[in-house]
């Protein structure tokens, strides 16, 4: 009879995977909401990114290229929020551009919310240029004739009438380009944007590895890698933003997985021990 009833260890070993799913879900929700903070050490590319923006003077123009949508939200949204927060602190003007409709909508809504909180004026201090279907063509066009290439902003105002880019003829009037992206757009910016414009890069963690060569060669002036980089950046800005929250949740999901791997091995070990004793 005793063989029929499962021991505790056997039950742990054969746990229904749906419990695991639930535990992971609850774990992530908890650490997203809970105000626990784990200090991060700031990596050199993030520090460089921060220093580069610190050099901006009030009124300097920055172009943000935002090409992410729902699936990479957790990595790109904290980056964009942190970058906009820093730009507003430096009183810099900025314009956003996307390469497709979803990333336009998502970055426009986000920028509207973040700027409203700090009283930044649309049209005066920032604007969203909508989306351009072909990035290469768009960059080349913006270098020669910016208002003619973009024509209208996201609200339908003519670009030449927007105070934020009053008198701006070309992309070379900008101080820097910040590329927030999950895809390989940064080589395009490097190849086609004017030489006096410095490029900063916010990739997802998967894409970051390929960018170190550009970082070494100085073609990119700084880099924020995924949510982890955003957390480090927020630490430099001394705010607790999404990067910190998301990274917390990521860290503790890693801890959860490791704890369960150890638990599984312990259960396997105990189970063997028990069987040996009985058999």
């Amino acid at each position: 009879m005793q063989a029929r009833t499962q021991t505790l260890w056997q039950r742990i070993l054969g746990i229904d995977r749906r419990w695991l799913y639930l535990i992971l879900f609850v774990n992530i929700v908890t650490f997203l909401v809970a105000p626990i903070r784990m200090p991060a050490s700031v990596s050199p590319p993030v520090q460089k990114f921060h220093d580069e923006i610190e050099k901006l003077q009030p009124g300097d123009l920055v172009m943000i290229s935002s090409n992410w949508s729902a699936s990479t939200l957790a990595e790109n949204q904290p980056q964009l929020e942190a970058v906009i927060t820093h730009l507003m602190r430096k009183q810099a003007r900025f314009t956003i551009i996307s390469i497709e409709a979803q990333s336009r909508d998502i970055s426009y809504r986000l920028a509207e919310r973040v700027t409203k909180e700090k009283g930044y004026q649309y049209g005066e201090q920032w604007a969203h240029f909508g989306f351009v279907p072909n990035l290469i063509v768009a960059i080349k066009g913006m270098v020669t004739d910016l208002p003619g290439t973009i024509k209208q902003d996201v609200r339908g105002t003519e670009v030449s009438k927007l105070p934020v880019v009053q008198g701006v003829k070309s992309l070379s009037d900008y101080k820097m380009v910040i590329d927030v992206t999950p895809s390989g757009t940064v080589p395009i910016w490097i190849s086609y944007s004017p030489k006096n414009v410095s490029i900063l890069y916010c990739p997802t963690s998967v894409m970051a590895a390929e960018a170190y060569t550009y970082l070494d060669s100085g073609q990119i002036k700084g880099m924020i890698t995924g949510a982890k980089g955003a957390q480090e950046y927020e630490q430099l800005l001394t705010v607790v933003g999404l990067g910190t929250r998301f990274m917390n949740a990521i860290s503790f999901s890693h801890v959860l997985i490791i704890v369960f791997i150890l638990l599984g091995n312990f259960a396997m070990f105990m189970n063997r021990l028990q069987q040996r004793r009985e058999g």
Partner: protein
Amino acid sequence: MDWLLEFLPRNLDRLSVWIGVLCTLAIYSLLYRENPVYRFFEHMYIGLAAGYSLGPLGVDILYRYWIEPIWIQGYWAWAFVVPYGMYLYFIFSERYGWISRIVIGTLIGASAGLFFQEFSSRYLPQLNSTLQKPLWVSDANPDMTYGMMINNILFVVILLSVLTYFTFSYEQRGPVKRVAIWGRWFLMIGLGAIFGNTVMARMALLIGRIYYLLNDWLMIRVGGG
């Protein structure tokens, strides 16, 4: 009460959030078990995806590479391409089925021919970068540290032992077998590292979704402050 009014889908923006949430929850229901709701969304998903592809991958390509060159630019020779490609559709015929293999043969030949360039571009620069690893300090590489030296030697040893594992045409015996087993173990280190490194990216995706549920749908403001 205010929260409820804001929460319910009373305008288009809210409605689109609700649609997104419904899709997410329907997909997540697969985690519990396969069920009619999931099945409904799965079929809708495949239908939508198939329909969507026809625009950018069907009509757009045909227009750009076939209709425009012929009718607008006047390059008449393109006219033969689509009828030739249509041979592919003979696949559905029992008698004429073999004719589709002419087109398939074209595709196979083309992908074989293209592979020579792919092989050169993809693998030879990798072979070359393997050679950029001096094994000991010499006059030609005076700046090398001991750390670099150890790393370089490890690199070459791992590369060669894994390569040994991937040989097939003789029986692996004695020292060769031992090297091959080491090769497999090194391989496992690489695979483990990739597994560990991917976890973060995948967790970030899930967190993105959960954030969408909490922030956009339930309007629980997470972070920011």
